[in-house]
């Protein structure tokens, strides 16, 4: 019943518009009557941007970036506002020497030391990912070999550097 009456109405008002046939939207009918029985709707060539879900690997790269920031201690940097790099003054000559690692506590850092350690962790993670990519069967052999060697060297490098960093920071580590 309702579609029929709107059908006849739409036939009178807008003969070339097929979308009004059988529309159940009450607001559409209201708006059609009130301003647009007098005004003429302009012909627009607008296209609504279509939102599509990003691919998993795009999301993964964003996640990796966020992980890098969190693990570098960015929240600590924002709240405590440590200097980018520490400094100490030589008692004899008076020259100012930089100190990269804040020593004395486990839960304290300078900005640069946080960022470099975070980079090491992410590099290690990427190394393992490269290792998995190297074992994928659908690639050329040279690519597989280069991925594997890059992966292994990344893991080894980042592990060695991380151990070095923690040993510098906490002299009593593993003793």
């Amino acid at each position, binding site marked *: 019943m309702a579609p029929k009456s709107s059908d006849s109405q739409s036939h009178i008002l807008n003969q070339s518009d097929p979308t009004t046939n059988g529309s159940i939207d009450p607001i559409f009918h209201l708006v059609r009557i009130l301003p647009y029985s007098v005004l003429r709707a302009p012909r627009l060539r607008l296209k609504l941007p279509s939102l599509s879900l990003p691919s998993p690997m795009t999301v993964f790269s964003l996640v990796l970036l966020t992980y890098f920031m969190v*693990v570098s201690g960015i929240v600590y940097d924002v709240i405590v506002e440590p200097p980018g790099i520490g400094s100490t003054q030589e008692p004899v000559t008076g020259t100012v020497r930089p100190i990269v690692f804040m020593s004395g506590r486990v839960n304290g850092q300078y900005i640069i030391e946080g960022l470099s350690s975070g980079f090491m962790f992410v590099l290690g993670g990427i190394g393992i990912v490269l290792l998995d990519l190297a074992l994928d*069967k659908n690639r050329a052999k040279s690519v597989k070999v280069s991925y594997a060697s890059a992966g292994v060297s990344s893991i080894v490098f980042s592990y060695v550097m991380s151990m070095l960093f923690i040993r510098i920071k906490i002299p009593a580590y593993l003793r």
Partner: protein
Amino acid sequence: MPPQTMSAKTDATIGVNGTAKSTSNQAPPPMALPANLKSDLLNKLSLKSFKLKTKQQELLLRVSILFLVYVLAFITRLFSVLRYESMIHEFDPYFNYRTTLFLTEKGFYEFWNWFDYESWYPLGRIVGGTLYPGLMVTAALIYWGLRFLRFAVHIREVCVLTAPFFASNTTLVAYFFGKEIWDSSAGLVAAALIAICPGYISRSVAGSYDNEGVAIFALLLTFYLFVKAVNTGSLTWSLASAFGYFYMVSAWGGYVFIINLIPLYVLVLLITGRYSVRLYIAYNCMYVLGMLLAMQIRFVGFQHVQSGEHMAAMGVFFLMQVFYFLDWVKYLLSDKRLFETFLRITVTTTVGLAAVALGVGTASGYISPWTGRFYSLLDPTYAKDHIPIIASVSEHQPTAWSSFMFDFHILLFLFPAGLYFCFKRLTDATIFIVMYGLTSMYFAGVMVRLILVATPAVCLISAIAVSATVKNLAQLLRTKSKVTQGGSSKAASGSKASSKALLDQSQPFQRNGAIALLLGVFYLLSKYATHCTWVTSEAYSSPSIVLAARGAHGNKVIFDDYREAYFWLQQNTPTDAKVMSWWDYGYQITAMANRTVIVDNNTWNNTHIATVGRAMSSYEDEAYEIMRELDVGYVLVVFGGVTGYSSDDINKFLWMVRIGGGVFPVIKEPDYLVNGEYRVDKGAAPKMLNCLMYKLCYYRFGELMTEYGKPPGFDRARGVEIGNKDIKLEHLEEAFTTSNWIVRIYKVKPPNNRW
């Protein structure tokens, strides 16, 4: 299995090798029979009769690994029990111990309705309505169970060992969870990683009788049951997850994490187009039943419908109903365009109604806004500016990279790799673990204490990385000629013969490479185990109430001053004496010295704490007024100047000033600083040199020689000689100082007799 014995029997009758010798002459059978018997026995005794099928071998391997991991998780937490004794650590566990003692002595109803007049004098504390009873009830149940079996244990032993016991149970839940997300080998690795991970050990060591010990078990159990419910769509698992949520709500205030993560997860599933009836059943059952059960805990009350932190769950609940409704309408309608219009109308109406309801609720005050504790997680700078008491707790500081490294070690490398594997194989379960991992890592970055909540997620995701990598490498080891057949067709070089030769050359290289990489993986995991054990032994096994240091000759020196002071209080003061100290020591004083305190670790009344802070930072006369008002009999301070103990009251003094000054503007922080610097030596501010805390800590200290070659009155914790050595107390007198001067107790003198 029977063929062996049957053939033995037939051999006995027919003869060996099937020759019919049964009716032959006498000589051979006597010699053949013993030989037959011998081989028969040998066959039975050899392991061939015990040969298990591969499935049974695998089951045996898994069960034995899980058993070993269970035992490992328990014994790695026992360092402090072996080094010192079986005692409760830190501050909060003493309150939990006292309440558990009350529960076992007086029964559940007395416990549930308990009003404690011995703390927060003169306000008192409604204990029944302001604690999470899960931990106490669990320990009491274990205690009653053991007593029923006629094991005469003391409740203290049960309390001390509750946390390691539940840590072992967590490894089992981690195994099942890993099995649900990926496969059983990932589950085994996850169980092994979580058994020794320092992030979890730090709060669940033996003696650390705190809510988190039980809460992490409840958290992982709830998540496992929910993911199982979403995977199977079964009503049983959904109801089980609701009960798991109830246990979590009864155990810890961190249940807010669950009630926000699960709706977020459901939302992500809806956005990625993974709506299904299984999800509908799981979430509805868990939310409705879980909410009703959570309201049984008096401390939580009606927060699930009234508090802003719980509104996300309700919003997603209604959104699910809308999704189900739309799905049903889509099924009924055959016209696609009609359905699209209907969809648009419904979505607009729903969003509009929800916004209106939320607005009305918030504006009328029915829905309370986010509390400071949880709001400071979303906006970390909030606590620093507005709530100094939250900012002062050392566990609430943001996390630096070294804390992450200390608590996770190689898991920090494996976590992004595990995320990659999860993103490669996206299922409902892997989406959940990814979300849990990311949200918990963000919160761990905001607050050091929350590394504990991130640990299970990090262990599970790292286990996926380890398991997938080891599987890949082991597959490389196992491939033999089949790869050459397939690989030669894809070879880039010329003729098939040369390519086959190349691949034949690379086969052993591949195998050697895989073996080397596997050895590397095992090396890394063994370094992880070494690191975890070292960290547990050195950093996380100190009871905090007993201090240890290295003496001059490398021998271990133990400072048991705290317990000495509390015991003195218990023995030498009247039973109704009130003790004033900073809130850190309140729980310990009430539990061990059995005396009434003014403020304790519950910190529920900021003004009361500020009053104490004001008293500590005022001159002696003003402080005496405040102490007379509060009817204080004794004052307790902690002083580390003789031993070099750095967590004493002088180092905490600025927080007393800040908190006191937050409520009473008469206390101003710059009065105690010199050029923005906090000093206690000759150049210190005059207000600092004469305030009550300074006088009580350094009374008679000016005459003491603390270090060879330094003047008397040298403060070893600050490294300076104190400024005001000639201290006279007018309204207090020294009652007791412990053997290493760590705890000092002063008696408040009654007012002079009026003439």
